[in-house]
């Protein structure tokens, strides 16, 4: 049996959990550790921490957050954002991460995938592939959270990523990210049928049906969810709103409005509904 993993993805800027749309226009939602703890208790299968600005400013401020999280949360944590060298990866692993995700550095220097997979093992290396659908319906990979055009075709890129030894691909549709309008099923299907390695689908989850489609029709091995779970938590738990640092755009939180695109479905609800649909998942008692 293969059990589908449901993975909350937490985008981080400085000390805060943030979320944007199309990986842009970041809103502060709270403290990553608080959300991580709640997701852990609700049965998250893994967690992803993505530093949204590390690659832009060439800095890496995540290590404190990783260490605090790994002391308290006993599921695998994948960390990405601005990792450029084997030493960068080593630092993040030593801080308590179990896996790393790389994108910009991998595209600039594909040999980095080979070197890092050899040094740390395939299962430690996740390559993040951020995709923008072109007017002619082709799919191209972008870097720097979807800001930088590369001209690289997604299908040939994911095959190279597999060939060079990465253990997993985190596939983000930039077009769908943060919109809650559903996954790009064609994209997920194209990639998951082209490679034998694990494909984590990300970008577009708005309701449970979307997730079901990504698994049943897209054949994703795992699903990463951000906005839908974060806003779901915020819509459920008012006290989370008081736990943020005042860096960044917090106007949204101060107004205490819920994000209307998303309901208040929790991770528990998601897993229960998928299980009712006979999708194999891990359950905690």
């Amino acid at each position, binding site marked *: *049996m*293969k059990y589908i993993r449901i993975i909350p993805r937490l985008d981080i800027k400085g000390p805060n959990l943030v979320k944007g749309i199309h990986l842009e226009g970041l809103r502060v939602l709270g403290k990553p550790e608080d959300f991580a703890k709640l997701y852990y208790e609700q049965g998250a299968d893994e967690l992803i921490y993505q530093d949204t600005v590390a690659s832009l400013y060439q800095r890496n401020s995540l290590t404190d957050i990783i260490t605090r999280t790994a002391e308290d949360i006993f599921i695998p944590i994948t960390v990405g954002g601005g990792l450029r060298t084997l030493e960068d990866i080593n630092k993040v692993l030593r801080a308590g991460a*179990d896996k790393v995700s790389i994108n910009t550095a991998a595209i600039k220097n594909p040999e980095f995938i080979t070197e890092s997979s050899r040094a740390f093992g395939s*299962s430690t290396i996740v390559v993040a592939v951020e995709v923008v659908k072109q007017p002619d319906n082709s799919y191209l990979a972008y870097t720097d959270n979807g800001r930088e055009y590369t001209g690289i075709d997604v299908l040939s890129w994911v095959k190279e990523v597999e060939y060079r030894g990465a253990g*997993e691909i985190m596939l983000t549709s930039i077009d769908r990210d943060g919109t809650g309008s559903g996954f790009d099923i064609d994209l997920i299907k194209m990639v998951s049928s082209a490679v034998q390695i694990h494909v984590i689908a990300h970008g577009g989850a708005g309701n449970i049906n979307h997730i079901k489609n990504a698994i049943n029709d897209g*054949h994703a091995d795992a699903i990463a969810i951000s906005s839908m779970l974060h806003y779901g938590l915020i819509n459920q738990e008012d006290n989370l709103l008081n736990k943020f640092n005042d860096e960044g755009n917090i106007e949204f939180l101060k107004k205490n409005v819920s994000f209307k695109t998303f309901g208040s479905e929790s991770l528990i609800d998601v897993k229960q509904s998928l299980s009712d649909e006979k999708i194999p998942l891990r359950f905690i008692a």
Partner: protein
Amino acid sequence: MDVAIIDYKMSNLYSVQAACKKVGISSVITSDRNVILDANVAILPGVGAFGEALSHLVKSKLDECIYSFIDSGKPFIGICLGLQLLFDSSKEFGNHKGLGLIKGTVKKFQLHSNQSIKYPVPQIGWNKITQSGNSWKKSLLRNNHDNDFMYFVHSYYVEPEDDSIVISKTTYGDKEYCSAIQQNNIFAIQFHPEKSGDVGLNIYKTIKKEYC
């Protein structure tokens, strides 16, 4: 010291130590022979390549230390690669000799995907451990339940010659394999209890209760 976590430069030892700390076990990450032999329990963790790991162990003479620790009769725990290293040999990138503490070999998954589900190797994710042979009552799984979900990351699995040491099995694709063994004072598991949520922490709690 309650637990010595054997450091042979091959793995993420932080999470093993974090799990110990969480349940109140004092632990040290060490490659010092005397510190290891003084501990109540020794844990051999590990992620990485078999051949490289074994050469690290031999170079630092930790192999002899492991033999002495096991001779002392104190509980010895192998996790993931730390399970595989205990076997006679591995077919990972050629043929490698192991520590030879457990009769049997380490083999690579050769899975046959069916039309709709692919089974990527390495297996990365959650899977069930199913009780096999001897009861868990005498092992460190005594406070766990049949079919508990544990977190696995591996391309290779162990095949012991003596089926009676197998205490749990797990199925991935069309392959049912040994996911835990108990041989005298050696308890070794393919999954990562420190990454398996509260169910995994149960094993650490049992270590604390019985040996610390």
